[in-house]
């Protein structure tokens, strides 16, 4: 029965990937891709990774679909031309490349499954070292204790994505167009319930993250989804300038994380050492705020946000 469930989900993933990517209208592709995200969450659930299922749920349901649909709308509003179809020869070559790459990935993956067997050495070392840190959730442990430099750089990558998208959109403070906001009474009721709830759930995930599945990345994604909801409902608007509070939110993760790390260096500890569970909470809170703010701004395609509509 277990194997049957896995096989069904796996077949679903393959069929959905095909449907999302090959043939059909672009809009159908986007919808199929959203459904692909749902199915990925099921796959993570089956693979015993509720952390990943949560992240996929928050990102897939809250951000990805809205992002792709709005990008599609923007392209249509700009009246962009459709590309000319690719040639037949190219399609044949691509088929061969696709099949070969597929075989390659399968061989690497199967070899890795054979070679490593149950529980890699790094995983065992992690499980052995974790109790000393006072954290119950190995993933938070990895992110903040063992892979701290990586995690810091990942927050920095988010910041870089924001800066890069500002650069790409030109120096005239222009924002990308957004469709007219939905302000039906029902949407208002939904926002009234969901917006506070996203904040509540984000804080829950952050707090749970030290012992249970959850943590800054999921919490930040949930906050971002709340922000996207507010924008779509016309409660938040793109603004040409990035306010002080928003600037602080954007850099909070990078600054707090590296700040704590450097202070520890001054105290004679290794660079980026984390002094205790309270520091983990501090760093994760700052990371959550940064991740949420960056994703909302990337969605808006503007420098800043404001509560009032422009004009």
């Amino acid at each position, binding site marked *: 029965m277990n194997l049957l469930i896995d096989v069904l989900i796996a077949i679903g993933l393959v069929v959905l990937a095909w449907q999302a990517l090959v043939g059909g209208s672009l809009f*159908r592709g986007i919808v199929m891709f959203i459904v692909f995200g749902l199915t990925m969450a099921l796959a993570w659930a089956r693979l015993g990774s509720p952390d990943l299922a949560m992240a996929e749920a928050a990102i897939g349901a809250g951000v990805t679909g809205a992002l792709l649909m709005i990008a599609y709308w923007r392209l249509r509003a700009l009246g962009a031309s459709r590309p000319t179809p690719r040639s037949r020869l190219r399609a044949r070559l691509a088929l061969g490349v696709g099949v070969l790459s597929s075989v390659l990935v399968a061989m690497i993956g199967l070899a890795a499954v054979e070679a490593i067997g149950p529980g890699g050495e790094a995983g065992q070392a992690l499980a052995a070292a974790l109790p000393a840190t006072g954290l119950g959730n190995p993933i938070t442990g990895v992110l903040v204790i063992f892979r701290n430099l990586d995690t810091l750089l990942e927050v920095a990558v988010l910041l870089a994505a924001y800066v890069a998208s500002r650069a790409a959109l030109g120096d005239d403070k222009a924002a990308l167009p957004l469709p007219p906001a939905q302000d039906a009474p029902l949407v208002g009721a939904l926002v009234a319930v969901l917006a506070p709830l996203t904040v509540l759930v984000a804080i829950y995930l952050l707090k749970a993250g030290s012992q249970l599945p959850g943590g800054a990345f999921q919490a930040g994604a949930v906050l971002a989804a709340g922000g996207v909801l507010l924008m779509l409902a016309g409660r938040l608007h793109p603004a040409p300038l990035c306010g002080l509070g928003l600037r602080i939110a954007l850099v909070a993760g990078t600054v707090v994380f590296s700040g704590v790390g450097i202070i520890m260096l001054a105290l004679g500890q290794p660079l980026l050492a984390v002094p205790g569970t309270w520091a983990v909470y501090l760093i994760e809170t700052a990371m959550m705020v940064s991740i949420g703010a960056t994703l909302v701004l990337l969605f808006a395609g503007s420098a800043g946000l404001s509560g009032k509509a422009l004009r």
Partner: protein
Amino acid sequence: MSVLEWLAAALLAAGAFFFLAGTVGLLRFPDALARLHALTKADNVGLLLICSGLAVLGGSVRVTGLLLLVWLLAMLASTVSAHLIAGRALADDDTGDPLDEGADERARSEGGT
């Protein structure tokens, strides 16, 4: 199996039946509004029944509260979504798929592969 487990099994089976009914409606009903009608109602009842069954199995107040919250939010979300999508379906009645202009993709699949 205890009485509670039988109760849970009955609730879960009933929930599965409503999901099946919703899917049959989705596949068999003639237009978007009828499908919407079948789907949202049947799925919400199905979700309620499955949540009740799992609450009986879960056996703690915390789990029951969370399941209740999930169901209430599902009601809210499907109400709003169904309202918005029905408005859309009415607005482009008979015009086919307003977004499905996939000339580019179809041209490719005809000429490309």
